[in-house]
Every structure is written in structure tokens, then in C-alpha cells.
């Protein structure tokens, strides 16, 4: 029997021999102009792929032998699932949209190329027109990155650079400006103010749910940042969110939910942006959601081409208005190891092109509502025009970008490790679970139990 098992084991292993070769990265080779095909997985919709197409064409004018093939793979999680299937066979793409926890997962297979050697490379590459550039980033290029975004690429515990930021978004507070102005309500900047605003709105319109929050998980994590209480850690023990402070804010928000001040997407049973833009009897007057989704927070036009109400955008409420914290989201790019070093070099050149080209960053931002990752975009004329035109109607994306740009130093990220996405899912579910604890039951006891369960689920997920 033992013999059989070991035989099977050998057989299984033989069949599973992996395709990724772990190349040592001493000196990285410069791209030598050879013909390579680079595959790129992202989640762009057709509005963004048009922009991408245009800049791939520009890139190919410089490097005609680098062929870029991209695939739009559903959402961020779909990209992760797809790539983790492909890595064991070495058929993963060259470049992919990524979030930090995806990289932590791919790193189990040591599949992600570290970029430090490329960034620092002084090797000279010749372009199609005979001009040259260095492989790495110039000092100006490095300095042009918004520092916080750039440094997200090296938050994997070993100080090495794994990703390059592409575009950023955050959460913003959308409010019904028409209603706020008409009733002389000030936009809340703190949670305490928000509570008062909610009370006021209900006095004016009893059949409303004043605030809709799109993502429970973001909410929880942002609150831990704002209160500066533990959430997770990149080193074990990873899951630190079961503490009295976190329970306290959950309990407070539960009470607000029970009062009908607010709701969230999964509690409401439909998208909160739909509630915010509703012109029916039941609506909300504030909505917290992604800054890249501004157009979803704008009501449909009336028959005469006007909007039923004007949208205002502000920073989300804070615990301390002088120490703002907003979540940093949006895709980064990672490059995968490949047997052919030229493929990797070419991938790096394309990533460098996308992240450092002002025109691309500007157009991408204008088409999507994501904000650029380099500072010089602000000096771009077209982009400056775009921001200057910001309003609560047709140019709501510009308004959202403008608000994001103004709060750039408030961005935070949370640690990425294998299991961080589980923690995210769990704290999101934890919020809804606690909010729905009915009055009259043992609220504290049930909140305690919910926290303990969430921790147990997280610990289980990283159990091996």
C-alpha cells in the first residue's frame, strides 16, 4: 500500500511539473529590439480600451516589434482567479492589473517579477526612430510619481518593488447639492456632523434613508484607519481587528442603521447608487462610493435635457477632520516572470510607458474618473481644462477627480498578505451581520460572537 501511494505521488508530481522557471535577477538585459508578444490582462470596459488602443499604437511607433495583446477579464477577482489557474502551467500573461493581495497570492508561486533592477537599469535601448532611452526610470520620472502610490509597490514585507501604480480611485461622499442648498444643510465633514445631518434630513423627508454606503468592507477598514485601531498586520498574527474600539464604532453605526439613517448595498438589497439617483418616493440624499463611479451617482436626465438634481462631491466624513483618511484603490500593474528575458524587458518598457506618459495618464483619467499617478498630468493643458470644467452634471467625473486630487495626502493602504482579501470579505460581512442584530436581543454579546466568528474564518483561510 505504501509503495502504491508513493508511486502515485511520484506520478502525480511528474504530471504536475511546473512551467515557471525561477530566473535569478542579477543584471537585467536591455530590450534588444527582438520580436515579442506581450499579453496583458485588465478589467477595462470598452470606453477605456479605446484609449488603450490609441496608446498601444503610439507605443508601437516607438517599438514596432513589441506586440501587445490584451484581454478584458471581468472584474479584479476574475483576473486573480484566472491568473492563479495559469501560473502552475506557466501560461500566465506578461502584465496584469493587480491589487496588493493578488500579488501576495501569486508570490506563493514566486511568479511576480521584482522591478528594482529594471527601475535602476542604466542600459540603453534604441527606439525605431534611432533615438535612445535608458531601460530604467530617470530621476525626473521617479520624482514625478505621487510618492504614496509609488511606494505601494514595495509593501510586501521584503522592501522589493513588485508593482507599478496605473491609476487610483478612492471613496468620496456624493450628496444631493440641490437638496442640501435648498434646505441650507452644510456638508458633513465628521461622523458626528453626519449624524446631525441625517436627523435633519429625516425631519424634512421622513421617507428617506439619508445615506447609502456602497461597500461595507471599505467602510470598516477606513474606520480602523480613522480611529487608528488595529485591523490586520503583514506579519503573523495577521488578524487584529477583534478589539473593543472596533466593536464600539460598529455598535454606533448599528444604532444609526436601526434608526434608518443609513443603509449599505447588501443591506438594502439593491445598489445604493440607484437609491441616491432615484426620483421616486424613497431615496437617499448622500451616497458614499468609488470616485471612479461618479457617472453612476448622477441621476438620469429629464426629458428637457436637465438633471433632476445637481450632484455635489466631498471628502467622506472623518473621525478627526484634521487628520483625514481615505482608502486608496485602483489597479496597479505587475509583470510576471517568463523564460524569455526579452519578454520581461519588453513588458517593463510597456508598463513604464503607460505609467509615465502624461498624455495617456490624462486621457485614461478623463475617460474613467480614475486619477492619474504622476504629478505632471496636472500641468497638461487638456487635463487642466477638464478639471476646470468640473460640475455636478455633465462633468461629474471631473468633479470627482478634482476632489480626489485635493485629498491626495489622506490616502492609506492596508497590509497585503496571503489572506488579506479574506479579511476584507470577513469584515464586510461582519458589518452587515452586526447591523442586522435586532433591538431587544443581546446586542453586545452577538457583536462579540460575530467578531470571534470572523476571526475564526480568517484564521481558517490561512490555516495551512
Amino acid at each position, binding site marked *: 500500500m505504501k509503495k502504491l*501511494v508513493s508511486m*502515485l*505521488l511520484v506520478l*502525480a*508530481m511528474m504530471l*504536475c511539473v*511546473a512551467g*515557471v522557471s*525561477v530566473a535569478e535577477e542579477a543584471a537585467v538585459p536591455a530590450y534588444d529590439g527582438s520580436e515579442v508578444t506581450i499579453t496583458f490582462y485588465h478589467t477595462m470596459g470598452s470606453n477605456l480600451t479605446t484609449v488603450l488602443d490609441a496608446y498601444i499604437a503610439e507605443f508601437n511607433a516607438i517599438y514596432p516589434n513589441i506586440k501587445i495583446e490584451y484581454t478584458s477579464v471581468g472584474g479584479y477577482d476574475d483576473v486573480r*482567479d484566472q491568473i*492563479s489557474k495559469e*501560473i*502552475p502551467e506557466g501560461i500566465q500573461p506578461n502584465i496584469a492589473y493587480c491589487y496588493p493581495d493578488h500579488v501576495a*497570492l*501569486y*508570490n*506563493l*508561486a*514566486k*511568479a511576480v517579477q521584482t522591478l528594482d533592477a529594471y527601475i535602476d537599469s542604466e542600459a540603453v535601448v534604441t527606439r525605431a526612430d534611432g533615438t535612445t532611452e535608458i531601460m530604467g526610470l530617470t530621476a525626473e520620472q521617479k520624482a514625478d510619481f505621487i510618492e504614496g502610490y509609488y511606494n505601494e509597490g514595495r509593501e510586501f514585507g521584503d522592501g522589493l518593488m513588485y508593482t507599478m501604480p496605473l491609476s487610483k480611485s478612492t471613496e468620496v461622499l456624493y450628496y444631493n447639492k440641490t437638496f442640501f442648498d435648498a434646505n441650507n444643510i452644510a456638508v458633513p465633514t465628521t461622523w458626528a456632523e453626519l449624524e446631525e445631518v441625517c436627523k435633519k434630513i*429625516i425631519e424634512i423627508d421622513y*421617507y*428617506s*434613508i439619508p445615506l447609502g454606503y456602497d461597500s461595507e468592507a471599505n467602510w470598516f477598514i477606513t474606520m480602523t484607519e480613522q480611529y487608528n485601531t488595529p485591523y490586520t498586520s503583514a506579519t503573523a498574527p495577521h488578524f487584529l481587528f477583534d478589539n473593543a474600539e472596533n466593536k464600539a464604532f460598529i455598535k454606533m453605526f448599528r444604532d444609526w*442603521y*436601526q*434608526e*434608518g439613517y443609513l*443603509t449599505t448595498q*447588501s*443591506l*438594502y*438589497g*439593491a445598489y445604493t447608487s440607484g*437609491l441616491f439617483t432615484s426620483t*421616486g418616493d*424613497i431615496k437617499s440624499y448622500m451616497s458614499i462610493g468609488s470616485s471612479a463611479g461618479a457617472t453612476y451617482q448622477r441621476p438620469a436626465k429629464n426629458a428637457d435635457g436637465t438633471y433632476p438634481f445637481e450632484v455635489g462631491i466631498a471628502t467622506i466624513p472623518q473621525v478627526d477632520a484634521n487628520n483625514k483618511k481615505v482608502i486608496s484603490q485602483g489597479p496597479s500593474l505587475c509583470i510576471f516572470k517568463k523564460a524569455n528575458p526579452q519578454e520581461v524587458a519588453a513588458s517593463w518598457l510597456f508598463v513604464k510607458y503607460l505609467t509615465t506618459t502624461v498624455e495617456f495618464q490624462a486621457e485614461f483619467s478623463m475617460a474613467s474618473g480614475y486619477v492619474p499617478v504622476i504629478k505632471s498630468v496636472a500641468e497638461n493643458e487638456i487635463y487642466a481644462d477638464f478639471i476646470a470644467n468640473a460640475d455636478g452634471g455633465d462633468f461629474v467625473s471631473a468633479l470627482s477627480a478634482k476632489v480626489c486630487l485635493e485629498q491626495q495626502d489622506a490616502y492609506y493602504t492596508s497590509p497585503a498578505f496571503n489572506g488579506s482579501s479574506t479579511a476584507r*470579505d470577513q469584515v464586510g*460581512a461582519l458589518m*452587515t*451581520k452586526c*447591523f*442586522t442584530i*435586532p*433591538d431587544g436581543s443581546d446586542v453586545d454579546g452577538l457583536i462579540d460572537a460575530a467578531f470571534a*466568528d470572523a476571526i*475564526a*474564518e480568517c484564521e*481558517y*483561510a490561512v*490555516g*495551512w
Partner: protein
Amino acid sequence: MVDSKQQWKAWLYLAPAIILLLVFTVWPIINTVAMAFMEGYSGLGKTGGEVTFKIGVGNFTHVVAHPDFRQALLNTCLLCVITVPVSTVLALLIAVALNAIKPLQKALQTVFFVPYVTNSIAIGMVFAAMFNVIGNIGTRREIITSYGVVNDIIRAFGGKWINWINSGSSYWANMFVLIVYIVWNALPFKILVLLGGLQSVNKQYYDAAKVDSTPRWRVLTRITVPLLSPMIAYVVITGFIGGFKEYTSIVGIFGEKMGPAHLPGRLNTMVGLIYESLENDNQGGASAAALILFGIILVVTMINLYVSKKRVHY
């Protein structure tokens, strides 16, 4: 006597099937059993260079320790124990009723078969829409945008609406929706099999009863059920096997979170656990869960066969 030429020819005919079976049926059985005993087997981990796996029952204990395991087992068993008898009895009644009528028989028979030819995820979405309540349910200042058609009907009859599938809903409300959906889905096949059985039953048994003016109920329990017992046994056994593999009906209604918003995973099933492990790149755990499921199905089928041997009249 089997001549060698025919031997050779037979294997030629069998070759395509045998090759495919070796790759996609035989090898998986061997490999899955092997992986189940390799602790923490993971495709990504192996690619990263961790090629040594301890041999042991760790995958099994890990699956059993899953926070959802007991719940998944309970859900799976409850769904089986409830939906199989309910759908069988209902199907039997409908089949008998169909068999007792002449006009419209064909038309009604067709109607009852329609759910069989639908896409279970698609119709699951319809069921979800019918039961979905939109609003801040259960709060002190409850404002409901939409109750969903099922609640609208209940309210029209003066009843109190129920939070079926949304956040804050109770376990049994969730289960009720699932049971309704699964029974609805299971009826066509069972009706068809039972009706087919009824139509092939020797008419003279019934003529005898008719002449005797035996009450319908007695005819049903004393003649129909015993005569149909092989078909009933068949639909019950296949129903149990199918029930233990319940998964897509839950995805259809609750989505891949396998539960209402506030308690994802509450409606998880054994098959759900297998796919969860697989998606999390834990093939060892998935294999162990699949073997556990196989064990359960085997035992239940044995019990079913044993019972039907005693009770089925051939």
C-alpha cells in the same frame, strides 16, 4: 467461443471511450484519492518550489474544521430529507391525477414538464427576484421600496410579509425559498417517471378497484403505490444522490456567496465546500471534501437500496 479477431475488433470499437475514460475518469479517481492524503496540496505552492507534502489525513481534518463544514453538512442533509419526500409525494399526486383525466391530459403533462427544460441558474434569478425585498428591513424606521411579488401576494391576502432572502432573513425563510425552488425543479422528472410507470400498469387492477368502488385514497395507497414502488424507489434514490450534490440552485438564488448578505456561507453545501477549496488553490482539501461527499452518498444509497429491497414490490 470468442475468437481473437472479434476480440481485437471489440477493443477497436471500445478504444475511443476507453482512452477518454482512462484520462478523465480513471486517472481522476486515482489522483483525487492520492491528493486527498497529501497535506496542504496546492498548485501554486508547488510552482513556488514546495514539492514535499506530508502524507496524512490533514486534509480531512482541515475540511472538517472548516467553520462552514457542520453547517454545510446540515444544509445538505436537510435539503435532501425535506425536498425528496415533498417532491416525490407531490409528483405522485400529480401523476395520479394526470392519469385519472382524459381531456387536457397531454396539455397538462406538457405544462408540468416545462421546468425540466430551463436553465437552473437563469430561473434561480427569477426566483430571487420574486422573493427579493428592497429596503432597510427590520429597522426602527422601516422603509421598504419593493416587497417582491411573493410578499405582495401574501399582503394582498392580508398576511404579514416575510424577509425571505435579504440581509437579516432567518435560516428557515432562506430554506423555504430553496426548498420551493428545488421541489419546483425536481417535479418534472419525477412526474414523468411516475406517470410513465402508471401508464404501463396493468389496467385490470384498477378496473377491479373501480368495480369494487374502492375509495380513491385506498386505491392510491393500496394499489398504486405498491405497483409503482420500483419507480418510486428510483426517483427517491436519484433524488437523494442529486440532493447531496445541491449547489447551482443556491448559486442561482443567493449568488456565489452561498447565503444572505449578512451571513455568507450559511447556505453552503458539501459541493460548495469542494469548489471553494478548489478556487482557493487547495486541491488537497477539495479532494478530501469530495471523498467525504462520496462516502456520504455511498452510505445513503446503500440504505436506500436496503430499504427498497424490503419494501419494493417487483
